[in-house]
């Protein structure tokens, strides 16, 4: 059934990619993955995985996938010995691979990337995955192709955490939701019995830190994604909020309230005493580590209005970096370290970026109710929350070079997005 539809897919593909034809991108042949299995699910998964790899690579500007096309089927032994002459006129690179069922019900997925002209292997990777998780293996194959050809890490196996919202505006039900960055494998981490905010995924993608209203006061919780079991980050009755993991995943920076003053603290992600980093009177909140872990950007109203400040990770050398009109809030450091994204308030709310030194500020979105940016692992795009005139919120993506934000599809209203790094 799926195979018969393939020619139609290809027509659509050719039309939709025609606009990129003049860009300098490496053409890579993606023939359908092979399988040694007789019958079973492996053949269907092989075809779908090939389509997903092509779809992943099509979304990049560096690679231009050709295929999958059923006329390019090859036998299982040919996975590691492809006929390069068949591809020389069509592609510079080639990705072959296989899907094989194991006796334990799982699948083995292998991928190989070749330089067609030189007839040389550029890289290979393989995984054993539960049958239901073949998409992750396919994303990894896309990553292999991207890395082998461009030299930069592929960014396909990533997740987005956010808050799924249902119910009336007055009695909102909020749940932590997780999904692959392409919208698949959607699940909920919390059941909605208490309000939850600002989920932040750990660098390895195994934990989520968030704010929970369960109990007497909002406080930071850390939950394992596998078990869903949460525990409080710090003990005590003070309100803690705005958590973010350090790049090595060992620490969490957050804000804690004391009277009418909030300061930035760090604590071991597994628990333990909190160490205070700021002491200025006023609201210090929304800390975010630089990718090397040496610095923290945060929001402070110590000057009278909320502005962005950068300090060393031990709290020393605090300096203000925003001086434009309006308020600057919810900063987040890019994974490449080159930029800091923020929410700007003043004539509505927009998303912008600025260099860590405070130069080259650019507002990327028009608002009027945008907030909470989070970086794509490539550092080239942001996901953020936009609330429309009817009060409904959703997730949007925008590139750092601007352009019209694209809606990210979620099953319900959505807020507080956080985009993970590449998963192990």
């Amino acid at each position, binding site marked *: 059934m799926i195979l018969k539809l393939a020619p139609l897919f290809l027509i659509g593909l050719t039309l939709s990619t025609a606009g990129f034809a003049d860009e300098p991108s490496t053409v890579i042949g993606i023939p359908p993955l092979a399988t040694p299995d007789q019958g079973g699910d492996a053949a269907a998964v092989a075809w779908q995985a090939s389509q997903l790899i092509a779809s992943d690579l099509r979304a990049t500007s560096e690679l231009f996938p050709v295929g999958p096309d059923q006329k390019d089927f090859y036998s299982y032994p040919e996975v590691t010995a492809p006929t390069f002459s068949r591809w020389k006129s069509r592609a510079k690179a080639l990705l072959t691979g296989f899907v094989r069922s194991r006796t334990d019900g799982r699948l083995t997925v292998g991928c190989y990337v070749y330089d067609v002209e030189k007839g040389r292997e550029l890289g290979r990777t393989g995984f054993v995955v539960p049958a239901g998780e073949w998409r992750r293996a396919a994303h990894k194959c896309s990553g292999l192709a991207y890395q082998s050809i461009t030299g930069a890490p592929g960014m396909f196996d990533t997740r987005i955490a956010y808050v799924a919202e249902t119910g009336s*505006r*007055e009695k*909102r039900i909020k749940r932590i939701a997780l999904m692959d960055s392409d919208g698949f494998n959607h699940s909920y981490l919390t059941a909605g019995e208490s*309000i939850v*905010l*600002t989920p932040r995924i750990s660098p390895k993608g195994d934990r989520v830190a968030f*704010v929970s*209203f369960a109990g*007497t*006061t*909002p406080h930071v919780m850390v939950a394992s994604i596998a078990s869903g079991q949460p525990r409080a980050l710090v003990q005590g009755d003070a*309100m803690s*909020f*705005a958590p973010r993991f350090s790049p090595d995943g060992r620490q969490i920076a957050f*804000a804690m*309230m004391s*009277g*009418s003053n*909030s300061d930035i603290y760090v604590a071991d992600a597994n628990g333990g005493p909190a160490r205070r980093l700021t002491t200025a009177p006023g*609201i210090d*909140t*929304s800390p975010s580590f630089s990718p090397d872990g040496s610095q923290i950007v945060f*929001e402070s109203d110590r000057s009278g*209005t*909320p502005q962005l400040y950068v300090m060393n990770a031990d709290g020393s050398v605090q300096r203000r970096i925003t001086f434009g009109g309006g*308020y600057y*809030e*919810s900063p987040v450091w890019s994974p490449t370290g080159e930029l800091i994204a923020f*929410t700007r*308030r003043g004539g509505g*709310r927009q998303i912008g970026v600025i260099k860590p030194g405070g130069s080259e500020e650019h507002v990327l979105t028009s608002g009027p*109710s945008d*907030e*909470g940016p989070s970086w794509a692992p490539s550092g080239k795009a942001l996901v953020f929350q936009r*609330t429309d005139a009817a009060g409904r919120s959703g997730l949007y993506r925008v590139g750092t070079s601007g352009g019209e934000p694209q809606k990210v599809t979620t099953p319900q209203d959505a*807020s*507080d997005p956080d985009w993970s790094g590449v998963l192990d």
Partner: protein
Amino acid sequence: MRRAVLLIVLALFAGSASAQLPGLRKRQPMPQIPIIVGIDALRADFLARSGSDLVYFAGDSAVLSPQARQTLGAQAQWLLQHPEVVVRIEGHADLSDTRDHALAIGARRAEEVRSFLVLMGVPAAQLSTLSWGKERPGPPRTQTILVR
């Protein structure tokens, strides 16, 4: 004397028996009513004598206006007369605030109200605070809620 006691006992029995009759169901929860009526009546009295359980703020501000101080002065008076009552001061931000900042400004507003009430002589043990951030949409405000 003994007769009177007996009559009362009989009346009580009669009362509990009659409560089982379909037409008189209303009387069944009577033993619990005094508590419910108590907190409700206290809340109504608090509202009536304080003028309001709400205090409003300007956007991005936790500064108490003269009107806010007047309302809180009345709230303090009432709380001093009811030392058995415990209240929770809930602080709110409005939707124009960003998520983290809203939690902080809601807490700051609640704390501003709490310290003012303490300044007016209300024992701190009668007061607790909570920030809702912008999770309960509406104007920037605090609400003083009788807990018990």
